[in-house]
């Protein structure tokens, strides 16, 4: 029966049908739902690992043991997992091993726009690239077959528009696959003597995969009526080309993006007058065509930046499109903001008030950078707040001490903050790290992590004791504050900044959007007391605005957290009795 499925859900369905029994991933937009949907199948064991490297190694272990396995991540997650990636390319697999990576052209929810296709080429691992949900399902199943046939991990590359678009799929039944493990030291122990023998195996495998790519069904040539132009394309770019031109021009659609065929592309190029490569971000296919000695157009027409769309493709070929009506009105932007009741708000207010230099990290709390709080100085990658702070302080002989902090969420701290903290303790910089513990992985939509006490399936799990962990690595000063209590936050942070040794402040309160979090009644404004001083506006709460000259609380948003009332010198913002 036909079903409408999100691209990521279709990958999960492909995992199920393809006999996958083990999934280990770290959440990251736009990849998260693959693993969430996979966890709904009883036949699949699925977990959130602390980071992508651990996930990939765990999933590899499962494949080695004889079970088909998967790990999923966003593009920047593959950087974290790159270490095992390059070497499991050498070892190959036992049962099929598929790695899902989701790029984010246009940076809807990411810190860079890297093109993960380069990883396939660099690690010499085949990569498939679906262009809708139906292909996502079928290619995931195919990936397991290719993985076992060619003894290699296989990458499935998604992008935001494929991962987060629903289209029609036809589900089918599951196959069960079980292989046995046999000790094979020369294949799985990658010390130099063995690895030297595995490298030529990898090169031969790539040649065999090129041969496969020549006739693979997922690389298909669609003949057009007009041979003045031929398009070579893949992924969502294929959809934009077809949207604009339909069956007019010939299209070579590549479902396997690494390695790419040679003869198939040359023959296609010969059949048309002009070859145009349409791809988002880098000229990956174009470079391959250039290496084959073909004259093609690509990045001289299309940008290296951002996503494509049907209108962009149309415009490049003089196809007229309707220009909509611009209102001509100054429409204020609506950037994302920290939610009303967000526990991070009070903490960031304290940091901004004390004019501290703040090394930020990756998560909802990156929004502490947005005015009026504007409390963050840097955001680089997972864990970079803590290690960056160490260098910032250490390099300046104590000059920056007491004026700087790192802020990092609970999930990000488990992901790659711990090692940075070890460095602070071991190489002794006088740094203060603030762990924003909201008891969930927030930004990606509430995933459990090792600090929450629950696993992906929602069952109780071992819960990391952050205080004990920080002390164990050698931090003697570990304090816990409630970020709803501004006075406490300020006192504790000032004390820890003035201490002559490294410290950790755990700012602890669960995310206000968690279902079990009970909200207080919305605050009420005493209009006789409000002096319109706008102090309450300094925390950037979406529930507060000024109407007719005085503070106004939006009842549908306010959670009654009371942070604003602590700023009001005139006692105009009141809690309501329950």
């Amino acid at each position, binding site marked *: 029966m036909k079903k409408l499925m999100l691209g990521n859900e279709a990958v999960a369905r492909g995992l199920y049908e393809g006999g996958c029994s083990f999934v280990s991933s770290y959440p990251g937009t736009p990849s998260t739902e693959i693993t969430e949907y996979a966890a709904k199948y009883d036949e699949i064991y699925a977990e959130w690992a602390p980071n992508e490297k651990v996930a990939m190694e765990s999933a590899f272990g499962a494949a080695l043991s004889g079970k088909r396995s998967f790990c999923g991540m966003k593009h920047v997650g593959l950087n974290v997992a790159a270490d095992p990636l390059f070497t499991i390319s050498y070892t190959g697999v036992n049962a099929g091993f598929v790695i899902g990576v989701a790029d984010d052209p246009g940076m809807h929810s990411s810190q860079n726009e890297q093109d993960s296709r380069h990883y396939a080429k660099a690690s010499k691992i085949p990569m498939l690239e679906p262009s809708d949900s139906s292909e996502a399902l079928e290619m995931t199943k195919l990936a397991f077959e290719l993985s076992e046939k060619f003894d290699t991990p296989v990458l499935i590359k998604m992008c935001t528009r494929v991962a987060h678009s629903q289209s029609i799929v036809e589900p089918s039944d599951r196959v069960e696959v079980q292989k046995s493990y046999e000790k094979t030291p020369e294949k799985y122990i990658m010390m130099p003597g063995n690895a030297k023998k595995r490298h030529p195996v990898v090169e031969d495998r790539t040649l065999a995969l090129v041969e496969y790519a020549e006739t693979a069904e997922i690389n298909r040539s669609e003949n057009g009526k007009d041979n003045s132009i031929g398009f070579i394309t893949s992924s969502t770019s294929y959809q934009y080309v077809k949207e604009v031109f339909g069956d007019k021009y010939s299209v070579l659609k590549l479902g396997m993006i690494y390695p790419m065929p040679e003869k198939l592309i040359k023959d296609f190029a010969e059949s048309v007058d002009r070859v145009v490569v349409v791809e988002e971000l880098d000229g990956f296919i174009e470079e391959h065509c250039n290496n084959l000695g073909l004259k093609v157009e690509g990045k001289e027409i299309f940008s290296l930046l951002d996503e494509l769309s049907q209108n962009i493709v149309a415009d490049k070929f003089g196809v007229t499109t309707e220009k909509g009506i611009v209102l001509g009105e100054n429409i204020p932007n609506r950037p*994302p903001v920290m939610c009303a009741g967000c526990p991070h708000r009070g903490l960031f207010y304290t940091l901004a008030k004390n004019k501290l230099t703040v090394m930020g990290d990756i998560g909802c709390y990156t929004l502490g950078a947005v005015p009026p709080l504007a409390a963050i100085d840097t955001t680089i990658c997972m864990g970079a707040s803590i290690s960056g702070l160490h260098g910032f302080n250490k390099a300046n002989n104590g000059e920056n001490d007491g004026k700087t902090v790192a802020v990092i969420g609970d999930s990000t701290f488990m992901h790659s903050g711990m090692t940075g903290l070890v460095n602070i303790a071991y190489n002794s910089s006088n740094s203060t790290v603030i762990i924003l513990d909201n008891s969930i992985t927030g930004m990606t939509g509430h995933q459990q992590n090792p600090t929450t006490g629950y696993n992906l399936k929602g069952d109780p799990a071992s819960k990391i004791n952050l205080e004990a962990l920080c002390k164990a690595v050698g931090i003697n000063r570990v304090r816990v504050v409630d970020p709803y209590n501004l006075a406490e936050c300020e006192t504790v942070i000032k004390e820890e900044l003035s201490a002559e040794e490294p410290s950790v402040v755990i700012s602890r309160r669960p995310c206000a959007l968690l279902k079990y979090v009970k909200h207080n009644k919305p605050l009420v404004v005493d209009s006789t007391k409000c002096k319109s001083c706008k102090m309450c506006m300094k925390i950037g709460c*979406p529930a507060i605005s000024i109407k007719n000259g005085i503070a106004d609380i939006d009842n549908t948003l306010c959670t009654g957290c009371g942070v604003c009332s602590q700023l009001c010198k005139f006692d105009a913002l009141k809690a309501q009795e329950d």
Partner: protein
Amino acid sequence: MKTKNVMIVGVGGQGSLLASKLLGKLLLTKGYDIKVSEVHGMSQRGGSVVTYVRFGEKVYSPIIDKGEADFIISFELLEAARYTEYLKKGGKIITNTQQINPMPVITGAAEYPENLEEKIRLKGIDLIAFDALKLAEEAGSSKAVNIVLMGMLSKFFDFTEDEWLNAIETSVPAKFLDLNKKAFDLGAKA
């Protein structure tokens, strides 16, 4: 049949994903090819969010581009104004008249434009603006704005009420079914 485009816009957290889910289910039962494109992640946190619903004989692109939308369904007035450029000639905007101040307005860095309904109409745009929040509250929950808007949209589609109600039944939890049916009805009669 030419592909039809419905764009759903609003503020992160207003429930536009449920509206697109409902539309998708309805269109699937009618045998169309469908693509629904959503937004997840950072922009959901109170930011401007857009969902694209496209259906027809064969749908390629998952997104709706400028000048392509047959309908823009907006959960908030400023968001309706933000996306007029996506409407095609002869298209229709259906908007909730609720106003939610974005952060630049809250901080005083920008102003919420006045008389937006009038300004949109002056551009010759076919606009239906009504207080969907009030109707949702009347149905029993401010969260039912999405279903009220679907009720209004249903007036312009050739699907039967039963077909819409079936789609609602499969999209919302059973305990909220009556509330949502009422919300749909209020939207359809508004």
